[in-house]
C-alpha cells in the first residue's frame, strides 16, 4: 500500500488540476512540419502534423501533396498541457514519407473537418535530389550493389544480374522492385544467399539475390536501378536493462523505413553475326556439347540396340533441335520421347537433353550408323560451331525366324505403331481475320420482332385452347338440345293427341316418337312389351305401366287388323296417361 501511495497521489493531483483548470482555447489549429527540407531518393523524411484544440481523439487529417511519396503512419500521440490554470489538448500524428521521384514538392496543407468546419495547416517545401555516392567510399550501415555478368552478351545469351545488400545493422520488411525492360526477360534465379563479407575494411552481413537476364533483341540497353524498400533498425546508445531490453523484443532499436537504390548498369546486347552461319543453324546460342552412344554394337537380327544422343550446355535450351536420323535400309528406327533435365547453379541454368532411338535390324549384316550433327553460336568465342558425333558400326548376326520383331507387312494392314510424341509449339500467334463479316442479326440468326416472338410462343397455346373450348362448347350445345327435346316430348305428344281425326297409325307414331325422345333412345320401333319394360326400368308405377301396355295393345290391334287409317279414340286416354308418366319419371 505504501508503494502505491505516490502514484495515487500524483493521479489525484492531475485529476484535480484538470477539474479546476479552464480550457485555454477552443479554436482548432493544425501545423505541419518536416524533419528536413532537402532529401534524396533513398531517404525517408519524418512528417509531423500537430492538431491542437480538437476535443477528444482527433481524426487523422488528410494531407495534400503526397501523391509522389510512399507514406507509412509512424504513430500518434495525445498531449495535454496546463499552463497558468488553463489546459489545452492536442494530437500529434507522425508519418514517414519516402519520395518516388526527384523534384521540388509542396507538402500540405493538412486538413481536418471538425463540426462541419474545415481547418487547414501550413504547407512545407521539400526538395528531393538524386542520391550522391559518398566521396570517401563509406556508404553507411546499409547499401545495395548491383552487378551483371557477363557485361556484354549476344541475343538470347543468359546473363546473371546480382544484387547484394550490405548491412551492419538489423533490417526487416525488405522488398525488391526489380526493373522491367522491354526486350529483356528478367527472372529470379535460385534462392537468396546470406554470408559475411568485408567492404572498405568494414565487416558486413551480405544478402545476395540473383536474376537470370535473357535479352530478346540486340541493342544498347541500360538496366535501370533496382529499388529496395526496407525498415532499418538503428541501435540506441543506452545501457541494456534486462533480458527483454533487446532488439528482438523491439525495445532498444527504433525502425525507420528506408529506400535503397542500386546503380544503373549498361547492358549492351550484340546481334548474332551473319558470317559463318551454318545452314542447319536453328538459333541455339550458348555453350554446348554433343555425345552419342550405341549399345550394344553387336546383336542378332530382330534384337534392339539403343542409340542415345546427349546435348548438354547452357543457353537458350528451348532451341535445342530434334536431331534426325536418316532412313537406314534394313533397320527400323523407333524414336523415344526426349528427356530434358535442368540444373540451377550459380552461373545460370545447365540443361541436359537426351534423345534416344531404338534400332531394330531386320536382317544380318554390317550397318553404318551416320553421325549426328548440331550447330550453335558459341558465346564464349563469338563464333558459330558445329558439333558432330562419330559414326558407329552395328554388326548384326542372323537371328532365328521366331525372334523377328514383326511379321512381314501384308498390303492393307496397319503399320507398326510409332511412339507418339507431343507436338512442340514453336511460336504463339492468333488466327487471321474473317474475310466476310456476315449478316447483322436477322433471320434465324436473331430473335424476331415482338409480334412474331409472342405469336410463336402464345399462338400455338391459344389455338389449342380455342379448339378445345369450341369442341367442349359444341358438345354442351348438343346436350342442351337433347334435354330440350326431352322436355318438349310430352307437349308434342299431347298436341298430337288433341288433333281431330287422329288415326291409329298416327297415334302409334306419335307414341313411338315420345318414348324415343323422352327416354333418349335410338329411333326405332318399340313393341308394347319393350315399352313396358323400359318404363319399369325407369321406376314408373306398375299400374301406369300396365295401363300404357293395355292402350298400346289396343292401338296395335287396330293397326294389325287393318284399321290403322281409321280415327281412334285412344288418343285422349294416352295423353292423360303420358301426363302421369311424366310425373313419375325421375
Amino acid at each position, binding site marked *: 500500500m505504501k508503494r502505491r501511495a505516490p502514484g495515487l497521489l500524483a493521479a489525484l493531483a492531475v485529476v484535480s488540476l484538470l477539474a479546476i483548470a479552464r480550457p485555454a482555447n477552443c479554436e482548432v489549429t493544425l501545423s505541419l512540419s518536416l524533419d528536413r527540407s532537402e532529401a534524396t531518393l533513398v531517404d525517408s523524411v519524418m512528417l509531423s502534423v500537430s492538431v491542437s484544440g480538437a476535443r477528444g481523439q482527433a481524426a487523422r487529417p488528410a494531407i495534400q501533396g503526397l501523391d509522389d511519396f510512399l507514406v507509412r503512419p509512424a504513430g500518434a500521440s495525445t498531449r495535454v498541457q496546463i499552463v497558468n490554470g488553463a489546459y489545452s489538448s492536442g494530437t500529434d500524428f507522425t508519418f514517414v514519407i519516402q519520395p518516388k521521384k526527384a523534384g521540388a514538392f509542396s507538402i500540405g496543407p493538412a486538413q481536418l473537418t471538425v463540426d462541419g468546419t474545415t481547418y487547414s495547416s501550413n504547407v512545407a517545401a521539400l526538395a528531393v535530389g538524386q542520391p550522391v555516392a559518398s566521396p570517401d567510399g563509406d556508404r553507411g550501415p546499409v547499401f545495395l550493389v548491383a552487378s551483371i555478368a557477363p557485361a556484354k552478351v549476344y541475343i538470347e545469351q543468359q546473363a546473371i544480374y546480382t544484387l547484394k545488400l550490405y548491412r551492419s545493422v538489423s533490417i526487416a520488411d525488405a522488398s525488391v522492385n526489380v526493373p522491367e525492360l522491354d526486350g529483356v526477360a528478367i527472372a529470379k534465379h535460385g534462392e537468396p544467399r546470406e554470408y559475411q563479407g568485408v567492404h572498405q575494411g568494414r565487416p558486413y552481413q551480405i544478402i545476395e539475390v540473383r536474376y537470370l537476364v535473357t535479352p530478346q533483341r540486340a541493342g544498347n540497353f541500360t538496366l535501370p536501378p533496382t529499388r529496395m524498400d526496407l525498415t532499418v533498425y538503428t541501435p540506441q546508445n543506452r545501457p541494456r536493462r534486462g533480458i527483454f531490453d533487446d532488439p528482438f523484443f523491439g525495445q532498444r532499436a527504433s525502425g525507420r523505413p528506408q529506400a535503397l537504390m542500386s546503380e544503373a548498369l549498361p547492358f549492351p546486347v550484340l546481334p548474332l553475326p551473319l558470317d559463318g552461319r551454318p545452314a542447319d543453324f536453328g538459333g541455339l546460342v550458348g555453350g554446348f556439347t554433343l555425345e552419342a552412344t550405341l549399345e550394344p554394337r553387336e546383336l542378332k537380327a530382330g534384337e534392339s540396340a539403343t542409340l542415345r544422343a546427349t546435348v548438354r550446355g547452357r543457353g537458350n535450351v528451348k532451341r535445342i533441335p530434334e536431331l534426325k536420323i536418316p532412313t537406314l535400309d534394313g533397320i527400323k528406327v523407333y524414336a523415344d520421347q526426349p528427356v530434358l533435365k535442368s540444373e540451377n547453379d550459380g552461373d545460370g541454368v545447365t540443361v541436359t537433353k537426351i534423345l534416344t532411338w531404338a534400332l531394330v535390324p531386320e536382317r544380318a549384316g554390317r550397318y553404318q550408323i551416320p553421325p549426328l550433327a548440331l550447330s550453335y553460336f558459341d558465346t564464349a568465342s563469338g563464333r558459330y560451331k558445329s558439333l558432330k558425333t562419330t559414326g558407329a558400326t552395328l554388326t548384326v548376326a542372323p537371328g532365328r525366324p521366331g525372334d523377328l520383331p514383326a511379321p512381314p507387312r501384308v498390303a492393307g494392314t496397319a503399320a507398326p505403331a510409332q511412339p507418339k510424341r507431343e507436338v512442340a509449339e514453336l511460336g504463339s500467334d492468333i488466327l487471321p481475320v474473317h474475310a466476310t*463479316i456476315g449478316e447483322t442479326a436477322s433471320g434465324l440468326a436473331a430473335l424476331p420482332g415482338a409480334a412474331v416472338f409472342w405469336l410463336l410462343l402464345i399462338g400455338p397455346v391459344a389455338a389449342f385452347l380455342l*379448339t378445345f373450348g369450341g369442341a367442349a362448347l359444341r358438345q354442351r350445345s348438343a346436350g342442351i338440345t337433347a334435354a330440350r327435346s326431352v322436355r318438349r316430348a310430352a307437349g308434342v305428344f299431347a298436341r298430337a293427341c288433341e288433333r281431330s281425326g287422329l288415326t291409329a297409325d298416327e297415334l302409334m307414331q306419335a307414341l313411338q316418337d315420345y318414348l324415343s325422345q323422352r327416354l333418349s333412345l335410338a329411333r326405332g320401333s318399340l313393341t308394347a312389351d319393350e315399352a313396358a319394360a323400359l318404363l319399369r326400368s325407369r321406376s314408373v308405377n306398375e299400374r301406369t305401366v300396365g295401363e300404357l301396355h293395355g292402350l298400346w295393345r289396343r292401338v296395335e290391334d287396330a293397326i294389325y287388323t287393318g284399321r290403322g287409317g281409321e280415327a281412334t279414340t285412344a288418343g285422349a286416354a294416352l295423353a292423360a296417361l303420358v301426363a302421369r308418366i311424366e310425373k313419375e319419371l325421375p
Partner: protein
Amino acid sequence: MRRLLLLLAALCVAAPLWAASPESRKVLQEADRAYREAQYQAAQDGYLQLLRNEGATGHLLYNLGNTAFRLNQTGRAILYYERARLLLPRDPDLAYNLARARELARDAAPGSAGFANAAFFWLGSLTLAEIFWFFAATNVLFWSLMLLRLYVKAEWTHYLLYLFLTVWLIAGASFWMKWHQVGSDDRAVILAAEVGILAGPDIRDTLLFKLHEGTIVRQERTEEGWSLIRLADGKRGWLRSEGLERIVAGYKPTRGLSSP
C-alpha cells in the same frame, strides 16, 4: 422439290453477300487489306466504322478483337472476343484467339461453374436466337400434337405426346436460362493497364488490390463514375468506371424486344 431445296440453299449462302451496302463492302475490303499489311490502327478504324454503320456481327467483333490484339490492347481484344462469342459461340478461330488473348492477361481469373451451367451444359455452345427458334419449333409441334390428340385418340399419339412434352419442357427451360444469362450478364473487362481496387468510391480509400488489363470481373453496380466489382474468389472493391467496360454493353441480343 429438289430444285426448291437447291434454291433455298443458294439463297442462304448468298444472303451475306448482298446484306451489306456497296460502301460497307468497300470499307470492309480496305480494313481487311490494312490488316494484311500490318496497318492495324487503320484496320481497327475501318471495322469500327462498319460496326457503327451495319451493326454488330460475330465476325466483325472477332476482327476487331484481332486488331486490338495486334495493337497490344489485350483488354479490348478480350472484350471484343467475348462479345463475338455471344454471337459465334462455336467458332473455332474465335475460341483459339480468345485463349491466346487470355494467356496475355496477367491476373488469374478462375471461372465460376454453377449447378445450372453444369446441368444446361449446352447453353454455352448456342446463341439465344438459336435456342429461341428451337423452342418456338418445339412449341408449335407440341401444341399441334395436343390438337391432334383431341380428335385422334390412337396409342401412338399418346406416346408421341409424352416425347414432345419432354422436349418442350427442356427447350423451354433452356430458353429461359439463356434469356436470364444474357439479361443478367454483368461481366466486364478491365481495360486499364493496371488499376487499383479501393475499399470505397473515393480516391482516398484504402487500396485493396490491383488488377491488370484483360481481367474479367463482375460489375455489381455503379455510383457517380465508380463501379463496384467482384472477382470469382469473392474479392470486391471499387474502381473508376473508365477502367472497365461491360461485355454486353455493346451487344443487343434481341431485336424488337427489350432485354429481360
